[in-house]
């Protein structure tokens, strides 16, 4: 999968843009994400339902995966079942 690929959640409205990825399965709401939304929505897993926030970047502990949330939803993001966490941009003074 190339950086820049857009993935949609099968369980909620979440959409992400892939910034960095490896071989694992990217999921939202507990279900694998894909470029096309499935005809039938997947059930939202209660373990992965903390929601995604627009404009936040989500990473794994090793920084091998990075996703940018471009549309928020009820599901939370994970890779192979392990929850991703938000990466906070260091606040910088506006320079341009």
């Amino acid at each position: 999968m190339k950086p820049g690929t857009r993935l949609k959640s099968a369980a909620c409205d979440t959409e992400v843009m892939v910034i960095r990825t490896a071989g694992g399965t990217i999921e939202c709401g507990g279900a694998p994400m894909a470029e096309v939304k499935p005809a039938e929505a997947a059930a939202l897993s209660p373990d992965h339902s903390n929601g995604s926030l627009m404009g936040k970047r989500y990473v794994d502990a090793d920084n091998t995966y990075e996703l940018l949330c471009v549309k928020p939803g009820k599901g939370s993001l994970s890779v192979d079942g392990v929850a991703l966490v938000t990466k906070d941009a260091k606040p910088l003074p506006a320079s341009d």
Partner: protein
Amino acid sequence: MNIALLLEMAAEAAPDRIALVCDGKRWTYGDLLAAARGAFEIIQESGVDYVALLDESSEASMIALFGAALAGVPYCPLNYRLADEDLTALLERIAPALVIGDEERVERLAGDQGHTVYAREMFTLKAQESWPEGEDREYDPGGGVAVQLFTSGTTAAPKAAILRHSNLLGYILGTVEFASADEDDAALVVVPPYHIAGISALLSSTYAGRRIVMLPSFEPEAWLKLAEGEKVTNAFVVPTMMARIIDKLGSDAKANLASLRSIAYGGGKMPREIIEKALALMPETGFTNSYGLTETSSTIALLGPDEHRDALASEDPKVRARLTSLGIPLPTVEIEIRDEDGKVLGPNEPGEIYVRGEQVSGEYKERSALDAEGWFPTRDAGYMDEDGYLFLSGRADDVIVRGGENMSPGEIEDVVLTHPAVGDACAVAIPSIEWGEAVGMAIVPREGHERPAEDDIKELVRSRLRSSRVPEKIVYVDELPYNEMGKLLRRKVKDILAD
């Protein structure tokens, strides 16, 4: 990754928020996205290789930037101040292009180059009408070049620097928090559209959700009026603009700048005197020095508001000197100082500034300047102090090599500028039979002062620096040649000294 994503997200989150104010007209994020999608249709249909702008900043520059991105065609704003001959050559390098702006001039200079030309109003109008809402469109995934900028060519023919979507997005996503601006925040953009700061200002304000207030051409009174009238909170200026704003504020202007929280500056060396005056005249405003290059998608190091005030208030000469530093590198880039053999230097050792990071393209149309490990040699000469503050001494190409000794013009100029009768000064290399090169100096006497004697200048340099740095030749001029961005044209000073 496509930079159009920034506008798509802003429009998704707040479609009715004001994104842009230009010539009294207001545009929402929704309006701009619809127009950019319309511009995509126009660009697709024309089958061009580039989208060029030959015009001052306006809504058209934003619509063209994002429309070109959606179409996967590089956006190439051109310097409308160029002489006919130079502009013709640049237009030829991007043919066939969709050119927005000065129709008459493109027709006259490049009528036979196959361009499609639109006057600004026509382009804007057609872009607004062309989005077939509801129809599916395959927009470009953004794997290629987003922006091509011709460098100003102060030393040689302009180079075509290219910035990929990944470089610009790397910069924005790494430094700007999405939708972080308050509804009342507004950024005054006055840098010309063909300058990297003019591009990055549009991208970062869009992603932050900060209203852009455009001033198409700089004039201090108009700047102050707009800053007050639109309750501007952020602004970016080049040093010459800052000097003229300060002049105006110090004399007759009665502008209420209470809302102006932050002024960032960059694009050239800020004289210490000017920044000190600015800090005194605007005690409530935070100043940020941002250092960057076209090839690095804008800012790579910055000196923040607190560091400005701390430096000004400090008794420690080392901390005080930081007022004229470039600050510290962004957390998202790496910076190294290297010598001519590529060896990495330690603190306070002068050499060339190298930078690496996602936002660093270091790429020209013809070749990439990156080394095997991805480092970009900036050709800027400088050093870093033991706390990581970066100092610029000038362009590496401007270094004067006298008898094998490397001398930075900036170091000599800084000393000469302390003379009360010197208003401005420029040191360049002049040919010397004995030494290969020697120091030549052009001096602008300060208004209201007697022209400083040559011997006084020489003695001043001898007493503060080494005798090798004493100017061999001094000429007096009424003014030094700067380009419109405040860049000193040393090449022209060399010509003056050669006469």
